[in-house]
């Protein structure tokens, strides 16, 4: 827009230059003729004049006009009959033709060179402005600094008081924006109506939005609008195409810098979150770990106290109470430890083919030790069943399931462990069943939920913290199996079932 204005302003001057130069050439030619120099010199002088016109003016128009003018002037002043446009000697027509042609080509070439140089200069200015901006933005440590530097650089390059308004993460504009004020000062100004501004910017169809004071150009980030660059209306109206292009390039750079900052920030945040998570688990594990040793001491000491007293003494009962509670605490500590490891996702599962009977045997033996007066029925397939698993963890699952069954049954209720092969789905099916009172309908969907404990148990019942079955679910899921709880179809009692896939064996063998 301004480029056109400038050109218009300079038109009279350029016409003046053109006419003046032609006149000058004519004058020199006049002198040559008086000195009886050959006419060739006059022609060459005209061509020089056309070249100068092309050099000193903008565009092709003046050069071509001056070519024609020069030929006309030569014809008028220096060919007989003088001071007319008619020619006696037809040879002159050739002279005119070649002269015009030469002049036109010369002026065209000169103009072309000039334009190339001008574009090069423009590009260079653009590049250096961009470089300046990117260079400054590299060191920016936060969004604020990016905005400040951008405003400063844009203001310098466009010679105006530009402004920048940042948008928040949720896409709504900040309540205030920063604006350049003079050379070295920046001021903060309030935004009147952030909501309507946001609405206008989000529904923008053109590259900028115009309001009373500013042209608002949005800064588009990878995912959202990061802010707007505001150029004062007066400056914006006068910007050349090149300046507009430059502004857009600069906005691109700003967007890149802001995006970089945002992703860096996100990285820092996720690192911090991971760190916090790790600290928390480490703390929990350290506590659990340090609880084990004193618990061992308490259990051992209370056991010794029990051995020192007779069964029917009150002291024995007290010592026995200490022992039982310590034992319960211990199993809870183990569960919490397992849970933290499972939650961290750090629990490395060492799957290898294990004989199912061994794992079941160990779990049953552990429970028999804990509750020597209870008996369990164990069924395993006749054939040796090898399933890929982490034996330690599956033992834990079985222990938790059996423990759960023990907790929810009375002294003489039957508890059974059964392992079968489902050849159809190629899975090993483990079932822990009891003849207790079963699981109520309200509890059934939640038994594997973390921290879920039934409301039904009597006032004296030992409350769990609802971790045992949740851990089972996590472990089995990590093995690629499923867990399920249901009431028995063949009478009273509950049935907890988990499956482990068996196809891994083939994989292990092919390895």
């Amino acid at each position, binding site marked *: 827009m301004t480029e056109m204005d400038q050109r218009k302003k300079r038109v009279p001057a350029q016409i003046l230059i053109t006419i003046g130069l032609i006149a000058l050439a004519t004058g020199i030619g006049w002198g040559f003729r008086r000195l009886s120099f050959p006419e060739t010199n006059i022609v060459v002088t005209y061509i020089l004049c056309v070249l100068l016109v092309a050099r000193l003016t903008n565009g092709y128009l003046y050069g071509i006009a001056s070519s024609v003018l020069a030929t006309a002037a030569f014809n008028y002043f220096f060919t007989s009959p003088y001071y007319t446009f008619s020619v006696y000697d037809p040879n002159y027509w050739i002279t005119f033709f070649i002269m015009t042609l030469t002049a036109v080509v010369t002026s065209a070439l000169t103009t072309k060179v000039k334009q190339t140089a001008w574009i090069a200069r423009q590009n260079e200015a653009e590049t250096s402005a961009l470089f300046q901006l990117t260079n400054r933005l590299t060191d920016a440590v936060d969004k604020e600094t990016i905005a400040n530097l951008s405003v400063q650089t844009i203001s310098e390059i466009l010679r105006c008081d530009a402004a920048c308004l940042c948008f928040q993460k949720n896409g709504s504009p900040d309540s205030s924006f920063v604006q350049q004020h003079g050379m070295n000062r920046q001021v903060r100004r309030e935004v009147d109506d952030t909501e309507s501004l946001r609405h206008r910017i989000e529904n923008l169809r053109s590259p900028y939005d115009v309001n009373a004071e500013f042209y608002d150009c949005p800064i588009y980030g990878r995912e959202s609008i990061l802010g707007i660059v505001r150029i004062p209306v007066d400056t914006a109206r006068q910007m050349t195409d090149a300046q507009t292009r430059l502004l857009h390039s600069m906005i691109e750079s700003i967007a890149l810098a802001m995006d970089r900052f945002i992703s860096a920030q996100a990285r820092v945040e996720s690192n911090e979150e991971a760190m916090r998570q790790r600290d928390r688990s480490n703390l929990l594990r350290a506590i659990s770990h340090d609880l084990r040793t004193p618990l061992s*001491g*308490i259990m*051992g*000491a209370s*056991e*010794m106290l029990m051995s020192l007293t007779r069964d029917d003494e009150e002291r024995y009962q007290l010592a026995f109470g200490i022992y039982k509670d310590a034992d319960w605490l211990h199993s809870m500590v183990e569960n919490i430890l397992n849970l933290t490891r499972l939650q961290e996702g750090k629990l490395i599962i060492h799957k290898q083919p294990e004989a199912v*009977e061994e794992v079941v*045997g160990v779990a049953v033996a552990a429970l028999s030790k804990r509750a020597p007066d209870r008996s369990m029925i164990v069924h395993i397939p006749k054939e*040796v069943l090898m399933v890929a698993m982490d034996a330690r963890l599956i033992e834990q699952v079985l222990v938790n399931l059996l423990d759960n069954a023990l907790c929810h049954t009375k002294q003489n209720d039957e508890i059974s462990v059964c392992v079968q092969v489902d050849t159809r789905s190629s899975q090993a099916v483990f079932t822990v069943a009891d003849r207790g009172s079963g699981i109520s309908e309200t509890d059934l969907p939640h038994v594997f939920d973390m921290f879920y404990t039934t409301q039904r148990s009597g006032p004296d019942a030992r409350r769990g913290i609802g971790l045992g079955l949740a851990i089972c679910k996590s472990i089995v899921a990590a093995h690629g199996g499923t867990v399920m709880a249901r009431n028995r179809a063949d009478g009273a009692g509950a049935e907890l079932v988990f499956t482990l896939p068996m196809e891994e064996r083939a994989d292990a063998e092919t390895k």
Partner: protein
Amino acid sequence: MQKPNEQILVVEDDAQIRNFVCFALKQNGFAYTPASTAQDALTQLVTGQFDLMLLDLGLPDFDGMEVIAKVRSWSEIPILVISARDQDTEKAAALDAGADDYLTKPFSATELMARIRVSLRHLYQAGFMKMQSSACVRGLKIDFDKHLVYLDEHELHITPMEYSLLALFFHNIGKVLTTKSIIRNIYGSGYGTDTQALRALMAGLRRKIEANPAVPKYILTEIGVGYRLVGE
């Protein structure tokens, strides 16, 4: 047949556990010397006369494994390792390094005393056992001369492999044998650490000697570590 007052070195850094272990030892008629660091324990071992060492793997100054290796370089004293729960590999490594048995915290005093007795009996019978022509654990009897196995007086048909496995256990009654050491003994040292063949062999043997292989009475599984033939 137990001599009175066997000397037991108790190496444990936690005072509470050390106290209770010492108390239990006293109750059961053992003499004991407490030590709270590995350095202390090694000094005691060099200067005193001990019949058995109880060793906690998590000592403040030295790694338990180093202690075992050091002691084993000059002494055959039975070592009973006490460890925290989730250290399966460490347990197996300790046993392979020369420890005789292990206990996991928390353990009961009864269990501890039983293990100590087994280890001490081992010490006395070590040479004697090899000369015996037969051994018997409850209903299970092995005839080393004839390579025969009887369950409740009935002869069992077992393969030579199963026999050598069982014989190995009978030579180490009550002692935990690591999977690695069993494989080395049965298949030879070139066999590597493929546990699968051993598991299959064990399953076959159990089907012959146990009423229910999933509730074994004779050979118990120690998950992640190995197996043990239960004596009493």
